[in-house]
Protein backbone atom coordinates (compact mmCIF):
# COMPACT_ATOMS: atom_id res chain seq x y z
CA UNK A 1 0.00 0.00 0.00
CA UNK A 2 1.29 3.42 -0.83
CA UNK A 3 2.48 5.54 2.01
CA UNK A 4 1.01 8.87 3.03
CA UNK A 5 2.09 12.20 1.65
CA UNK A 6 1.86 11.35 -2.02
CA UNK A 7 3.61 8.01 -1.99
CA UNK A 8 6.28 8.91 0.52
CA UNK A 9 8.42 5.89 1.15
CA UNK A 10 10.45 5.89 4.28
CA UNK A 11 13.90 4.33 4.30
CA UNK A 12 16.25 3.52 7.08
CA UNK A 13 19.14 5.96 7.24
CA UNK A 14 20.98 5.62 10.53
CA UNK A 15 20.66 4.26 14.05
CA UNK A 16 22.56 5.58 17.07
CA UNK A 17 23.11 3.84 20.35
CA UNK A 18 24.10 0.49 21.79
CA UNK A 19 22.81 -2.75 20.35
CA UNK A 20 22.75 -4.78 23.55
CA UNK A 21 19.42 -5.50 25.15
CA UNK A 22 20.58 -4.65 28.64
CA UNK A 23 19.63 -0.99 28.78
CA UNK A 24 21.26 1.14 31.44
CA UNK A 25 18.75 3.55 32.91
CA UNK A 26 20.92 6.54 32.11
CA UNK A 27 20.76 5.70 28.40
CA UNK A 28 16.99 6.01 28.15
CA UNK A 29 16.31 8.80 25.67
CA UNK A 30 13.98 11.40 27.12
CA UNK A 31 13.78 14.10 24.44
CA UNK A 32 14.61 14.65 20.75
CA UNK A 33 14.61 18.00 18.95
CA UNK A 34 15.79 19.38 15.60
CA UNK A 35 17.01 22.96 15.52
CA UNK A 36 15.32 25.55 13.30
CA UNK A 37 17.27 24.68 10.16
CA UNK A 38 17.34 20.95 10.77
CA UNK A 39 21.09 20.93 10.56
CA UNK A 40 21.39 19.96 14.22
CA UNK A 41 19.56 17.22 16.11
CA UNK A 42 19.71 17.13 19.90
CA UNK A 43 18.83 14.30 22.26
CA UNK A 44 18.58 14.29 26.03
CA UNK A 45 18.64 11.23 28.25
CA UNK A 46 17.80 10.06 31.72
CA UNK A 47 21.43 10.43 32.76
CA UNK A 48 21.27 14.19 32.22
CA UNK A 49 23.39 14.10 29.07
CA UNK A 50 22.81 15.93 25.81
CA UNK A 51 24.12 14.61 22.50
CA UNK A 52 23.98 16.86 19.43
CA UNK A 53 24.27 15.47 15.92
CA UNK A 54 25.10 17.57 12.88
CA UNK A 55 24.04 16.93 9.33
CA UNK A 56 27.09 16.63 7.13
CA UNK A 57 27.40 18.58 3.90
CA UNK A 58 25.66 16.69 1.14
CA UNK A 59 27.63 14.17 -0.80
CA UNK A 60 27.35 15.54 -4.32
CA UNK A 61 28.56 12.40 -6.04
CA UNK A 62 25.78 10.29 -4.54
CA UNK A 63 22.70 12.49 -4.48
CA UNK A 64 20.33 9.74 -3.38
CA UNK A 65 22.11 9.66 -0.07
CA UNK A 66 20.84 12.49 1.98
CA UNK A 67 23.54 13.64 4.27
CA UNK A 68 24.14 11.79 7.49
CA UNK A 69 23.98 13.00 11.04
CA UNK A 70 27.18 12.61 13.01
CA UNK A 71 28.07 13.47 16.56
CA UNK A 72 28.81 17.16 16.89
CA UNK A 73 28.92 17.70 20.63
CA UNK A 74 28.02 15.90 23.83
CA UNK A 75 27.95 17.21 27.38
CA UNK A 76 26.53 16.63 30.82
CA UNK A 77 23.71 19.13 31.12
CA UNK A 78 22.20 18.29 34.49
CA UNK A 79 23.39 16.32 37.48
CA UNK A 80 21.39 14.58 40.17
CA UNK A 81 20.60 16.77 43.14
CA UNK A 82 19.11 16.32 46.55
CA UNK A 83 16.54 18.70 47.92
CA UNK A 84 17.53 18.81 51.59
CA UNK A 85 14.41 20.64 52.67
CA UNK A 86 12.02 18.04 51.32
CA UNK A 87 14.38 15.04 51.40
CA UNK A 88 13.54 14.44 47.77
CA UNK A 89 15.80 13.36 44.99
CA UNK A 90 15.87 15.61 41.93
CA UNK A 91 16.41 13.56 38.82
CA UNK A 92 18.94 14.65 36.24
CA UNK A 93 16.73 13.39 33.43
CA UNK A 94 16.41 15.93 30.62
CA UNK A 95 12.70 16.52 30.14
CA UNK A 96 12.87 18.90 27.21
CA UNK A 97 15.34 20.60 24.89
CA UNK A 98 14.41 23.66 22.87
CA UNK A 99 16.72 25.41 20.41
CA UNK A 100 16.97 29.17 20.10
CA UNK A 101 16.97 30.57 16.56
CA UNK A 102 20.54 31.22 15.52
CA UNK A 103 21.70 34.82 15.87
CA UNK A 104 25.47 34.53 15.48
CA UNK A 105 28.12 31.89 14.94
CA UNK A 106 27.23 30.03 18.12
CA UNK A 107 24.19 27.83 18.72
CA UNK A 108 22.06 28.10 21.85
CA UNK A 109 19.66 25.66 23.41
CA UNK A 110 17.60 25.42 26.57
CA UNK A 111 17.57 22.13 28.43
CA UNK A 112 15.56 21.37 31.52
CA UNK A 113 15.16 18.70 34.15
CA UNK A 114 12.37 18.66 36.76
CA UNK A 115 13.52 21.82 38.52
CA UNK A 116 16.21 23.78 36.66
CA UNK A 117 16.47 25.19 33.15
CA UNK A 118 19.86 25.87 31.61
CA UNK A 119 20.90 27.90 28.58
CA UNK A 120 23.81 26.25 26.78
CA UNK A 121 26.07 27.87 24.24
CA UNK A 122 27.60 25.55 21.67
CA UNK A 123 30.45 27.18 19.81
CA UNK A 124 33.07 26.04 17.36
CA UNK A 125 36.73 26.65 17.58
CA UNK A 126 38.78 25.87 14.48
CA UNK A 127 41.70 28.23 14.86
CA UNK A 128 44.21 28.78 17.56
CA UNK A 129 46.71 31.54 18.09
CA UNK A 130 50.37 30.84 17.71
CA UNK A 131 53.46 32.96 18.27
CA UNK A 132 52.84 34.70 21.54
CA UNK A 133 55.50 37.09 22.67
CA UNK A 134 55.41 36.30 26.37
CA UNK A 135 54.43 32.62 26.34
CA UNK A 136 56.03 29.45 24.99
CA UNK A 137 53.90 27.22 22.78
CA UNK A 138 53.14 24.96 25.73
CA UNK A 139 51.91 27.88 27.81
CA UNK A 140 54.87 28.44 30.09
CA UNK A 141 55.77 32.03 30.53
CA UNK A 142 59.05 33.16 29.00
CA UNK A 143 61.68 34.96 30.95
CA UNK A 144 61.14 38.57 29.81
CA UNK A 145 64.87 39.11 29.62
CA UNK A 146 65.18 36.60 26.82
CA UNK A 147 62.78 38.43 24.56
CA UNK A 148 64.62 40.50 22.03
CA UNK A 149 62.07 41.03 19.28
CA UNK A 150 58.35 41.63 18.86
CA UNK A 151 56.05 39.62 16.65
CA UNK A 152 52.37 39.49 15.84
CA UNK A 153 50.70 36.21 16.82
CA UNK A 154 48.89 34.50 13.98
CA UNK A 155 45.79 32.31 13.93
CA UNK A 156 46.48 28.90 12.50
CA UNK A 157 43.91 26.26 11.68
CA UNK A 158 43.32 23.44 14.12
CA UNK A 159 41.03 20.43 14.33
CA UNK A 160 37.48 21.52 14.92
CA UNK A 161 36.62 21.66 18.58
CA UNK A 162 33.02 22.09 19.68
CA UNK A 163 32.57 23.51 23.13
CA UNK A 164 29.41 23.59 25.19
CA UNK A 165 29.23 26.02 28.07
CA UNK A 166 26.35 26.86 30.38
CA UNK A 167 25.57 30.54 29.97
CA UNK A 168 22.54 30.86 32.24
CA UNK A 169 21.02 28.75 34.98
CA UNK A 170 17.36 29.41 35.73
CA UNK A 171 16.76 27.78 39.09
CA UNK A 172 14.47 27.79 42.09
CA UNK A 173 11.31 28.88 40.32
CA UNK A 174 9.35 25.64 40.29
CA UNK A 175 7.89 23.82 43.24
CA UNK A 176 6.53 21.07 41.02
CA UNK A 177 8.03 19.16 38.12
CA UNK A 178 8.76 21.04 34.92
CA UNK A 179 7.10 19.38 31.93
CA UNK A 180 7.56 22.01 29.20
CA UNK A 181 9.68 24.89 28.02
CA UNK A 182 8.89 27.04 25.01
CA UNK A 183 10.81 29.90 23.43
CA UNK A 184 8.77 32.94 22.46
CA UNK A 185 8.81 34.21 18.88
CA UNK A 186 10.34 37.43 20.24
CA UNK A 187 13.49 35.40 20.90
CA UNK A 188 13.92 37.20 24.21
CA UNK A 189 11.59 35.37 26.55
CA UNK A 190 10.52 31.82 27.17
CA UNK A 191 8.03 29.99 29.38
CA UNK A 192 8.50 27.02 31.68
CA UNK A 193 5.55 25.01 32.92
CA UNK A 194 5.22 22.62 35.84
CA UNK A 195 2.18 20.68 37.07
CA UNK A 196 0.48 23.73 38.55
CA UNK A 197 2.25 26.87 37.38
CA UNK A 198 3.71 28.54 34.31
CA UNK A 199 6.53 31.05 34.55
CA UNK A 200 7.78 33.60 32.03
CA UNK A 201 11.51 34.25 31.88
CA UNK A 202 13.80 36.62 30.05
CA UNK A 203 16.73 34.76 28.54
CA UNK A 204 19.18 37.27 30.03
CA UNK A 205 17.75 37.34 33.55
CA UNK A 206 18.09 34.42 35.90
CA UNK A 207 17.23 35.88 39.28
CA UNK A 208 13.56 36.41 38.64
CA UNK A 209 10.66 35.24 36.55
CA UNK A 210 7.01 36.17 36.22
CA UNK A 211 4.32 33.73 37.16
CA UNK A 212 1.70 33.86 34.42
CA UNK A 213 -0.51 30.87 35.24
CA UNK A 214 -1.26 29.43 38.65
CA UNK A 215 -3.88 26.71 38.98
CA UNK A 216 -2.93 25.60 42.47
CA UNK A 217 -6.11 25.52 44.57
CA UNK A 218 -6.06 27.07 48.03
CA UNK A 219 -6.94 23.67 49.41
CA UNK A 220 -4.95 20.87 47.77
CA UNK A 221 -7.79 18.47 48.51
CA UNK A 222 -9.71 20.30 45.80
CA UNK A 223 -7.10 19.57 43.14
CA UNK A 224 -8.80 18.21 40.05
CA UNK A 225 -6.39 18.78 37.20
CA UNK A 226 -2.76 19.53 36.43
CA UNK A 227 -0.92 21.23 33.59
CA UNK A 228 0.57 18.67 31.24
CA UNK A 229 2.16 20.76 28.47
CA UNK A 230 2.52 24.36 27.34
CA UNK A 231 3.73 26.13 24.21
CA UNK A 232 4.03 29.64 22.81
CA UNK A 233 2.36 30.48 19.52
CA UNK A 234 4.93 30.38 16.70
CA UNK A 235 4.23 33.95 15.53
CA UNK A 236 2.04 35.75 18.06
CA UNK A 237 4.34 36.60 20.92
CA UNK A 238 1.41 37.31 23.26
CA UNK A 239 -0.28 33.93 22.86
CA UNK A 240 0.39 30.58 24.47
CA UNK A 241 -1.57 27.42 25.21
CA UNK A 242 -1.48 24.90 28.00
CA UNK A 243 -3.08 21.48 28.17
CA UNK A 244 -4.46 19.66 31.19
CA UNK A 245 -4.87 16.18 32.58
CA UNK A 246 -8.60 16.50 31.96
CA UNK A 247 -8.22 16.80 28.21
CA UNK A 248 -8.74 20.55 27.89
CA UNK A 249 -6.54 23.17 26.27
CA UNK A 250 -6.54 26.79 27.31
CA UNK A 251 -5.29 29.56 25.09
CA UNK A 252 -4.10 32.64 26.93
CA UNK A 253 -3.31 36.17 25.83
CA UNK A 254 -0.61 37.88 27.88
CA UNK A 255 -1.95 41.27 26.89
CA UNK A 256 -5.18 40.61 28.74
CA UNK A 257 -3.67 40.55 32.23
CA UNK A 258 -0.46 39.87 34.08
CA UNK A 259 -1.77 36.63 35.54
CA UNK A 260 -3.39 34.58 32.81
CA UNK A 261 -5.51 32.37 35.03
CA UNK A 262 -8.50 33.38 32.99
CA UNK A 263 -8.21 31.86 29.55
CA UNK A 264 -9.08 33.58 26.30
CA UNK A 265 -10.20 30.33 24.71
CA UNK A 266 -11.02 26.91 26.12
CA UNK A 267 -10.76 23.96 23.75
CA UNK A 268 -12.71 20.93 24.87
CA UNK A 269 -14.50 18.17 23.07
CA UNK A 270 -17.85 17.38 24.69
CA UNK A 271 -17.95 13.90 26.13
CA UNK A 272 -20.87 11.53 25.90
CA UNK A 273 -21.75 10.99 29.57
CA UNK A 274 -23.12 7.52 28.92
CA UNK A 275 -19.68 6.45 27.70
CA UNK A 276 -17.91 7.62 30.79
CA UNK A 277 -15.82 5.03 32.64
CA UNK A 278 -13.12 4.89 35.26
CA UNK A 279 -10.58 5.26 32.48
CA UNK A 280 -12.19 8.17 30.65
CA UNK A 281 -10.34 10.94 32.40
CA UNK A 282 -7.02 9.12 32.46
CA UNK A 283 -7.01 8.44 28.73
CA UNK A 284 -8.21 11.95 27.93
CA UNK A 285 -5.19 13.47 29.67
CA UNK A 286 -3.20 15.36 27.05
CA UNK A 287 0.45 14.36 26.96
CA UNK A 288 1.62 16.84 24.32
CA UNK A 289 0.42 19.97 22.53
CA UNK A 290 2.08 21.42 19.45
CA UNK A 291 1.17 24.39 17.27
CA UNK A 292 1.32 23.89 13.52
CA UNK A 293 4.12 25.77 11.78
CA UNK A 294 1.62 28.13 10.17
CA UNK A 295 0.13 28.96 13.55
CA UNK A 296 -3.46 28.24 12.55
CA UNK A 297 -3.85 24.85 14.17
CA UNK A 298 -2.67 22.96 17.18
CA UNK A 299 -2.34 19.23 17.73
CA UNK A 300 -2.92 17.37 20.98
CA UNK A 301 -2.01 13.80 21.90
CA UNK A 302 -3.98 11.85 24.42
CA UNK A 303 -3.54 8.17 25.20
CA UNK A 304 -5.39 6.73 22.23
CA UNK A 305 -5.62 9.53 19.68
CA UNK A 306 -4.19 12.61 18.03
CA UNK A 307 -6.50 15.61 17.56
CA UNK A 308 -6.08 18.64 15.34
CA UNK A 309 -7.77 21.80 16.53
CA UNK A 310 -8.54 24.92 14.54
CA UNK A 311 -7.67 27.85 16.81
CA UNK A 312 -10.92 29.48 15.77
CA UNK A 313 -13.08 26.58 16.91
CA UNK A 314 -13.18 25.68 20.57
CA UNK A 315 -15.96 23.18 20.82
CA UNK A 316 -14.40 20.26 18.99
CA UNK A 317 -11.30 19.25 17.05
CA UNK A 318 -11.40 19.46 13.26
CA UNK A 319 -9.61 16.13 12.86
CA UNK A 320 -9.19 13.09 15.09
CA UNK A 321 -6.83 10.22 14.32
CA UNK A 322 -6.85 6.93 16.19
CA UNK A 323 -3.34 5.88 17.07
CA UNK A 324 -4.00 2.45 18.57
CA UNK A 325 -7.73 2.06 19.17
CA UNK A 326 -7.22 -1.68 19.75
CA UNK A 327 -5.84 -0.78 23.18
CA UNK A 328 -9.25 0.33 24.38
CA UNK A 329 -10.10 -3.24 25.23
CA UNK A 330 -6.82 -3.64 27.12
CA UNK A 331 -7.17 -0.66 29.44
CA UNK A 332 -7.44 -2.77 32.57
CA UNK A 333 -4.03 -4.39 32.13
CA UNK A 334 -2.53 -1.15 30.82
CA UNK A 335 -3.66 0.49 34.05
CA UNK A 336 -2.13 -2.29 36.11
CA UNK A 337 1.26 -2.03 34.41
CA UNK A 338 1.16 1.78 34.42
CA UNK A 339 1.38 2.00 30.63
CA UNK A 340 -1.84 3.98 30.61
CA UNK A 341 0.20 6.86 32.05
CA UNK A 342 2.79 6.86 29.26
CA UNK A 343 3.28 10.32 27.79
CA UNK A 344 3.51 10.17 24.02
CA UNK A 345 4.63 13.21 22.06
CA UNK A 346 3.57 14.23 18.57
CA UNK A 347 4.98 16.39 15.79
CA UNK A 348 4.12 18.12 12.51
CA UNK A 349 6.05 17.93 9.28
CA UNK A 350 7.43 21.12 7.77
CA UNK A 351 4.36 22.10 5.77
CA UNK A 352 1.80 20.83 8.33
CA UNK A 353 0.42 18.21 5.97
CA UNK A 354 1.45 15.13 7.95
CA UNK A 355 1.56 14.45 11.69
CA UNK A 356 3.45 11.73 13.50
CA UNK A 357 3.34 10.08 16.89
CA UNK A 358 4.69 6.95 18.58
CA UNK A 359 3.09 3.79 19.91
CA UNK A 360 4.15 0.46 21.44
CA UNK A 361 6.22 -2.39 20.01
CA UNK A 362 8.51 0.31 18.57
CA UNK A 363 5.74 1.23 16.16
CA UNK A 364 5.12 4.82 15.12
CA UNK A 365 2.24 6.26 13.15
CA UNK A 366 1.92 8.93 10.49
CA UNK A 367 -1.31 10.59 9.44
CA UNK A 368 -1.52 12.43 6.15
CA UNK A 369 -4.14 15.10 6.66
CA UNK A 370 -4.68 15.95 3.01
CA UNK A 371 -4.62 12.45 1.56
CA UNK A 372 -6.55 11.00 4.49
CA UNK A 373 -4.12 8.11 4.72
CA UNK A 374 -2.21 6.71 7.63
CA UNK A 375 0.61 4.24 8.05
CA UNK A 376 2.24 2.28 10.85
CA UNK A 377 5.99 1.81 10.67
CA UNK A 378 8.48 0.10 12.93
CA UNK A 379 11.87 1.19 14.25
CA UNK A 380 13.88 -1.98 14.69
CA UNK A 381 17.33 -3.35 14.12
CA UNK A 382 15.88 -5.96 11.76
CA UNK A 383 14.90 -3.24 9.31
CA UNK A 384 18.16 -1.35 9.43
CA UNK A 385 19.94 -2.16 6.23
CA UNK A 386 21.11 1.01 4.50
CA UNK A 387 18.28 2.59 2.52
CA UNK A 388 15.97 -0.31 3.34
CA UNK A 389 12.39 0.76 2.71
CA UNK A 390 10.17 0.40 5.76
CA UNK A 391 7.29 -1.95 5.29
CA UNK A 392 3.96 -0.80 6.73
CA UNK A 393 2.90 -2.77 9.80
CA UNK A 394 -0.56 -3.81 10.82
CA UNK A 395 -1.97 -4.78 14.19
CA UNK A 396 -4.76 -7.30 14.29
CA UNK A 397 -7.32 -6.28 16.88
CA UNK A 398 -9.27 -9.48 17.01
CA UNK A 399 -10.56 -12.34 14.94
CA UNK A 400 -8.42 -13.94 12.29
CA UNK A 401 -4.86 -12.75 12.15
CA UNK A 402 -3.56 -12.37 8.62
CA UNK A 403 -0.02 -13.17 7.66
CA UNK A 404 2.40 -10.33 8.52
CA UNK A 405 -0.05 -8.91 11.03
CA UNK A 406 0.78 -8.82 14.69
CA UNK A 407 -1.85 -9.51 17.32
CA UNK A 408 -2.48 -7.06 20.15
CA UNK A 409 -1.38 -9.60 22.74
CA UNK A 410 2.00 -10.00 21.07
CA UNK A 411 2.82 -6.31 21.30
CA UNK A 412 5.79 -5.47 23.49
CA UNK A 413 4.62 -2.71 25.81
CA UNK A 414 8.15 -2.11 27.04
CA UNK A 415 9.17 -0.95 23.59
CA UNK A 416 7.55 2.45 23.49
CA UNK A 417 8.23 5.30 21.13
CA UNK A 418 7.46 8.40 23.16
CA UNK A 419 9.69 10.93 21.36
CA UNK A 420 9.78 11.70 17.66
CA UNK A 421 10.89 14.73 15.67
CA UNK A 422 10.47 15.87 12.08
CA UNK A 423 13.04 17.94 10.21
CA UNK A 424 11.63 21.49 9.77
CA UNK A 425 11.94 21.44 5.99
CA UNK A 426 12.84 18.01 4.62
CA UNK A 427 11.35 14.57 4.99
CA UNK A 428 13.83 13.37 7.56
CA UNK A 429 12.53 12.04 10.87
CA UNK A 430 14.20 11.12 14.14
CA UNK A 431 12.51 8.38 16.15
CA UNK A 432 13.67 7.43 19.63
CA UNK A 433 13.15 3.93 20.94
CA UNK A 434 14.10 3.28 24.57
CA UNK A 435 17.82 3.79 24.07
CA UNK A 436 18.36 4.07 20.33
CA UNK A 437 17.84 6.94 17.94
CA UNK A 438 16.67 6.03 14.45
CA UNK A 439 16.88 8.42 11.52
CA UNK A 440 14.66 7.71 8.52
CA UNK A 441 14.52 9.55 5.23
CA UNK A 442 12.03 9.76 2.44
CA UNK A 443 13.22 7.87 -0.63
CA UNK A 444 12.77 10.75 -3.01
CA UNK A 445 14.52 12.54 -5.91
Amino acid at each position, binding site marked *: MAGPGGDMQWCFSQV*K*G*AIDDDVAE*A*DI*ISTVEFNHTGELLA*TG*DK*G*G*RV*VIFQQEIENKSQPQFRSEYN*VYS*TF*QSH*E*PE*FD*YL*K*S*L*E*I*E*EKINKIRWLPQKNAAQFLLSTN*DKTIKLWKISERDKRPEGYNLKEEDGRYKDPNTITSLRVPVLIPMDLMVEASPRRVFANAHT*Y*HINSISVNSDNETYLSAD*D*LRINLWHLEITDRSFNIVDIKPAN*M*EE*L*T*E*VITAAEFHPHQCNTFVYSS*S*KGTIRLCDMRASALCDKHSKLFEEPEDPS*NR*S*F*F*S*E*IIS*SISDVKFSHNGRYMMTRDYLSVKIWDLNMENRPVETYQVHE*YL*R*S*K*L*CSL*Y*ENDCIFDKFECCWNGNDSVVMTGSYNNFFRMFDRGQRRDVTLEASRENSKPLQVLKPRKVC*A*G*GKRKKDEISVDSLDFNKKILHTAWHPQDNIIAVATT*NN*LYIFQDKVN
Partner: protein
Amino acid sequence: MSGDNEETQTTEETTMDDKETQDKVISPEKAEEAKLKAKYPNIGNKPGGSDLLRKRLTKGQKYFDSGDYNMAKAKIKNKQLPTAAPEKTEITGDHIPTPQDLPQRKPSLVASKLAG
Protein backbone atom coordinates in the same frame (compact mmCIF):
# COMPACT_ATOMS: atom_id res chain seq x y z
CA MET B 1 -29.13 2.73 33.80
CA SER B 2 -28.18 -0.90 33.76
CA GLY B 3 -24.90 -0.41 35.63
CA ASP B 4 -25.45 -3.49 37.77
CA ASN B 5 -26.13 -5.71 34.78
CA GLU B 6 -22.65 -5.07 33.44
CA GLU B 7 -20.92 -6.66 36.45
CA THR B 8 -22.54 -10.05 35.97
CA GLN B 9 -22.13 -10.13 32.22
CA THR B 10 -18.49 -9.20 31.67
CA THR B 11 -17.06 -12.61 32.57
CA GLU B 12 -18.63 -13.91 29.39
CA GLU B 13 -16.71 -11.44 27.26
CA THR B 14 -13.79 -12.76 25.28
CA THR B 15 -12.82 -10.77 22.21
CA MET B 16 -13.60 -7.24 21.28
CA ASP B 17 -16.04 -8.43 18.62
CA ASP B 18 -18.19 -10.28 21.07
CA LYS B 19 -20.03 -7.32 22.58
CA GLU B 20 -23.52 -8.78 22.65
CA THR B 21 -25.31 -8.90 25.96
CA GLN B 22 -28.87 -9.60 26.88
CA ASP B 23 -30.28 -6.24 25.94
CA LYS B 24 -27.48 -3.74 25.33
CA VAL B 25 -24.00 -3.43 23.86
CA ILE B 26 -21.19 -2.85 26.36
CA SER B 27 -18.40 -0.60 25.19
CA PRO B 28 -14.94 -2.17 25.48
CA GLU B 29 -13.99 0.59 27.89
CA LYS B 30 -16.80 -0.21 30.29
CA ALA B 31 -15.92 -3.89 30.04
CA GLU B 32 -12.35 -3.08 31.05
CA GLU B 33 -13.64 -0.96 33.91
CA ALA B 34 -15.68 -3.88 35.17
CA LYS B 35 -12.60 -6.11 35.00
CA LEU B 36 -10.67 -3.61 37.09
CA LYS B 37 -13.41 -3.22 39.65
CA ALA B 38 -13.62 -7.00 39.91
CA LYS B 39 -9.92 -7.19 40.73
CA TYR B 40 -9.76 -4.16 42.99
CA PRO B 41 -13.19 -3.57 44.48
CA ASN B 42 -11.97 -0.62 46.55
CA ILE B 43 -10.62 1.35 43.65
CA GLY B 44 -11.18 5.07 44.06
CA ASN B 45 -14.60 6.57 43.80
CA LYS B 46 -12.93 9.61 42.30
CA PRO B 47 -11.09 8.10 39.37
CA GLY B 48 -8.33 10.32 38.08
CA GLY B 49 -8.97 12.60 41.00
CA SER B 50 -6.94 13.75 43.92
CA ASP B 51 -5.15 10.47 44.63
CA LEU B 52 -3.71 10.04 41.18
CA LEU B 53 -2.85 13.70 40.86
CA ARG B 54 -1.29 13.89 44.29
CA LYS B 55 0.86 10.87 43.42
CA ARG B 56 1.93 12.65 40.25
CA LEU B 57 2.86 15.83 42.06
CA THR B 58 5.08 14.07 44.55
CA LYS B 59 6.82 11.74 42.15
CA GLY B 60 10.35 11.05 43.23
CA GLN B 61 11.42 8.84 46.06
CA LYS B 62 11.31 10.51 49.43
CA TYR B 63 14.13 9.82 51.84
CA PHE B 64 14.13 10.30 55.59
CA ASP B 65 17.07 12.72 55.36
CA SER B 66 20.23 13.35 53.38
CA GLY B 67 22.12 10.68 55.28
CA ASP B 68 19.48 8.16 54.30
CA TYR B 69 19.81 9.35 50.71
CA ASN B 70 23.55 8.93 50.62
CA MET B 71 23.35 5.51 52.25
CA ALA B 72 20.89 4.40 49.61
CA LYS B 73 23.15 5.63 46.83
CA ALA B 74 26.16 3.91 48.35
CA LYS B 75 24.22 0.66 48.61
CA ILE B 76 23.37 0.72 44.92
CA LYS B 77 26.98 1.41 44.02
CA ASN B 78 28.35 -1.35 46.23
CA LYS B 79 25.74 -3.90 45.33
CA GLN B 80 28.22 -5.94 43.33
CA LEU B 81 31.02 -5.93 45.89
CA PRO B 82 31.22 -8.68 48.56
CA THR B 83 30.36 -7.41 52.02
CA ALA B 84 33.47 -6.81 54.11
CA ALA B 85 33.87 -8.36 57.53
CA PRO B 86 32.80 -5.87 60.16
CA GLU B 87 35.72 -4.13 61.83
CA LYS B 88 36.21 -4.99 65.46
CA THR B 89 37.32 -1.53 66.37
CA GLU B 90 35.20 0.89 64.47
CA ILE B 91 36.54 4.31 63.90
CA THR B 92 33.93 6.97 64.27
CA GLY B 93 34.18 10.53 63.13
CA ASP B 94 35.20 13.30 65.45
CA HIS B 95 32.31 15.58 64.65
CA ILE B 96 28.73 15.46 63.54
CA PRO B 97 28.67 15.64 59.74
CA THR B 98 26.93 18.51 58.03
CA PRO B 99 25.52 18.39 54.51
CA GLN B 100 28.73 19.96 53.15
CA ASP B 101 30.80 17.12 54.59
CA LEU B 102 28.76 14.35 53.08
CA PRO B 103 30.33 12.95 49.91
CA GLN B 104 28.43 14.12 46.86
CA ARG B 105 27.33 11.43 44.52
CA LYS B 106 29.26 11.97 41.36
CA PRO B 107 27.25 11.04 38.28
CA SER B 108 28.97 8.53 36.11
CA LEU B 109 31.23 10.31 33.69
CA VAL B 110 30.56 7.70 31.05
CA ALA B 111 29.65 9.31 27.78
CA SER B 112 26.29 8.62 26.21
CA LYS B 113 26.24 5.53 23.99
CA LEU B 114 24.54 7.61 21.29
CA ALA B 115 27.86 9.40 20.86
CA GLY B 116 29.77 6.15 20.54
